[in-house]
């Protein structure tokens, strides 16, 4: 099966409801079997081009096409099963609930006879490393696959269709480093074997740069700005600099963290009391008292924010009451964890998929109950106005939590609660309460000052009145971090904060977090991003998958 040829002549596409076209004036000639990396800043229309080639862009609804785009001489919408597409979010790449059925889905739609389908499916699953030889049966439940396995399953589903064109839209953006390599290698093996033409969009160019024949750079609202081999384009020079400035991850370059200049949002309500200076001056002492519980239990008690002793964590809560007898008690993903988090400390938690990193983070952040062991908030974390706050943060009210512990989730949209960016930033300070009196911690003026300070610090001022859901990916990430900082928490927890982010957002984010640590707040992040850990000079805690 030969690969597909692509011809574009002055092609453009304007999405419904937009005034500016996503792509315009695109001229392109791709010979059969070429492997192409598609790069460019956010909003350059990379995904639009892939969707058009996959034939899933709908010309009916008010959108507008110009010029011509042809795959093997035909309009791609009219070629069913000619192109296979893998998108970013693994959860939406799985269609059916058994591995074999999911891989067979595309072939069924192409009316492949039943006798041939299963041969194709077994073949495709073997090719991506999900075959029965690898211990994965055709009946395996797809919800039990890891993110990387789901992406490889999607690839197998496409492979069973035997398409001459394979299109990948950031297929590894949500994966950990081992997942990235397993998906990339599976793609390369498939392309090698079938001779299909490959087009891949990816933010982190290093993953593909050495493996592809050609690199195309798209510019926003336009066509192709650069076209050449990755070696040429990524060599030190103007193109590389241009890409780096646009936030593209060019190989071998770690962005420099950008420290925000505005500081007027950084005050802490609990410390406004008489004890304020007492902690402020002690930051250096606290920092050296920060260690793994196993090594040094001598840490100054006042400098410890959180102490976990013999902690067992699980996503599934212990079933309450009498119902426990009917269901199996959920097994903790980790047990007997000892951890201390000191003031002014940066900690990075890493570990393979399924090691329970995120679960640990949610438990430490007081969002899910622990199964065993104790979690104790220190007096520094509780603050001056702690009142009768319980030791375990999970038993705190949300209004008490928000001014002490901030948690940034992997998906920013999960945390949006208001209709404008500014209201989003006002929400935390307005809801933070004094646990003793139930009074607000911040007046309206104070809340507004904090919100405005954060808007300025994170360059979100022009977007203040915009609906958070309409922001770009990088803007959403910056906002989601800003919203938890608004109420001045002592410690910030982050779950994979740099997943899928461009280099510019990465630089702003790391700069912001470094600033927090420098002034004595603590940061604990679950991440595989080694550059992130280095930028924060973080203590690294590695979790092993429990037996």
């Amino acid at each position, binding site marked *: 099966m030969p690969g597909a040829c692509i011809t574009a002549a002055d092609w453009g596409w304007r999405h419904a409801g937009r005034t500016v076209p996503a792509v315009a004036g695109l001229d392109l000639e791709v010979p059969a079997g070429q492997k192409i990396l598609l790069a460019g800043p956010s909003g350059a229309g990379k995904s639009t081009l892939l969707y058009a080639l996959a034939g899933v862009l709908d010309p009916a609804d008010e959108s507008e096409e110009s010029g011509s785009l042809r795959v093997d001489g035909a309009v791609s919408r009219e070629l069913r099963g000619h192109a296979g597409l893998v998108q970013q979010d693994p959860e939406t790449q799985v269609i059916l609930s058994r591995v074999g059925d999911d891989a067979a889905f595309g072939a*069924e739609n192409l009316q492949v006879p039943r006798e041939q389908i299963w041969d194709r499916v077994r073949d495709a699953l073997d090719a991506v490393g999900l075959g029965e030889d690898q211990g994965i049966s055709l009946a395996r439940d797809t919800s039990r696959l890891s993110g990387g396995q789901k992406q490889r399953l*999607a690839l197998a589903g*496409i492979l069973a269709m035997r398409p001459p064109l394979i299109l990948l839209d950031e297929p590894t953006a949500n994966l950990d480093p081992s997942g990235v390599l397993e998906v990339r290698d599976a793609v390369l093996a498939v392309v090698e074997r079938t001779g299909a033409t490959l087009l891949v969009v990816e933010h982190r160019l290093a993953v593909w740069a050495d493996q592809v024949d050609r690199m195309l750079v798209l510019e926003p609202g336009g066509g192709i700005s650069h076209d050449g081999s990755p070696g040429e384009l990524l060599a030190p020079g103007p193109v590389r600099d241009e890409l780096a400035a646009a936030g593209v991850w060019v190989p071998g370059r770690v962005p420099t963290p950008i420290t925000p200049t505005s500081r007027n949002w950084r005050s802490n309500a609990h410390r406004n009391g008489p004890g304020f200076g007492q902690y402020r001056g002690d930051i250096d002492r606290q920092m050296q008292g920060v260690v793994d519980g196993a090594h040094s239990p001598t840490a100054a008690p006042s400098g410890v924010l959180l102490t976990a002793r013999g902690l067992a964590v699980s996503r599934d809560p212990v079933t309450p009451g009498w119902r426990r007898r009917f269901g199996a008690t959920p097994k903790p993903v980790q047990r007997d964890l000892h951890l201390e988090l000191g003031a002014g400390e940066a900690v990075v938690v890493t570990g393979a998929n399924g090691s329970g990193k995120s679960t640990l983070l949610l438990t430490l952040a007081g969002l899910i109950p622990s199964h065993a062991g104790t979690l104790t908030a220190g007096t520094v974390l509780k603050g001056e106005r702690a009142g009768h706050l319980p030791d375990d943060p999970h038993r705190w009210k949300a209004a008490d939590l928000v001014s002490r512990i901030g948690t940034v989730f992997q998906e920013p*949209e999960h945390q949006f609660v208001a209709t404008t960016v500014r209201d989003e930033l006002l929400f935390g300070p307005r809801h933070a309460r004094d646990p003793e009196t139930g009074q607000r911690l911040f007046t309206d003026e104070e809340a507004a000052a904090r919100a405005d300070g954060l808007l300025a610090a994170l360059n979100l001022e022009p977007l203040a009145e915009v609906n958070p859901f309409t922001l770009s990916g990088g803007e959403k990430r910056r906002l989601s971090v800003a919203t938890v900082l608004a109420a001045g928490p002592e410690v910030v927890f982050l779950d994979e904060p740099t997943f899928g982010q461009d280099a510019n957002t990465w630089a702003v984010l790391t700069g912001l977090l470094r600033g927090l640590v420098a002034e004595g707040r603590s940061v604990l992040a679950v991440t595989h991003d080694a550059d992130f850990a280095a930028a924060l000079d973080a203590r690294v805690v590695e979790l092993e998958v429990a037996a």
Partner: protein
Amino acid sequence: MTVPVAALAAPSRPVAGSVFERANPLAKLAALLPVTAVLVATMDWVSSGIVLVAAVALLPLSGIRVGEFFRRAWVLVAAALVSAWGTALVGEDSGSVLFEAGPVSISEGSVLAGLATGLRILAVALPGVMVFITTDPTDLADALSQRLRLPARFVLGSLAAFRLLGVLTEEWRTLGQARRARGVGAGGNPFRRLGSWLGQVFGLMVQAIRRATKLAITMEARGFGTGDRTWARESRFGAVDAWVILGGVGLAALAVGLSMATGAFNLVWA
């Protein structure tokens, strides 16, 4: 090595243990239909009792563990008890009065009516639960589209949406945690709670629509939605299915017969 015929028809189907799991979903529904029809038609404790006894006796055939069965069915048991109690309280009185307090009275007649109501609810619901637990959604979809010729677009679309429901259940939990981290409390007065709950529902809707749109693109990109398709798994009927259907019809006949013989038969609309 000999490969069983069933495995050739659908190699991705898990190896089924029990008779009920092996049976075609349509056969199970066909067996359920006459039984349910009888129970709906007559309001008496004999027919309900026979079906209930049969359901419990057939539990080993379904391969469902007793604990699992009650974990799924306890809501129905509770509903049956509540209905029985309610009917006993407000049902038409006959026979000697056992208890009286104002407008509420319990008599022998109303107690019997209550028992019959409770039994009937259980007898309708429990066999349904057994069929539900032993039926794989994928097998049901195959049967509906290949045997009943329902449109594939509708059946497979529903199947994919059904899978997404599981993902969204998980997402609901994450949303709750994410919102607590923002300071959205679970407490407060009922209006506040309702407001915060609606906010979470909105968040879930946004995620559901995003996911559904992406999933639709994924399906379309794999050639789904237009024209005919082939089926990798064959939905077939076998000897087991004949026995299952026969069993259902037999049970319905037995229930009607015994109920008539004992004189308890009591058509709802008569």
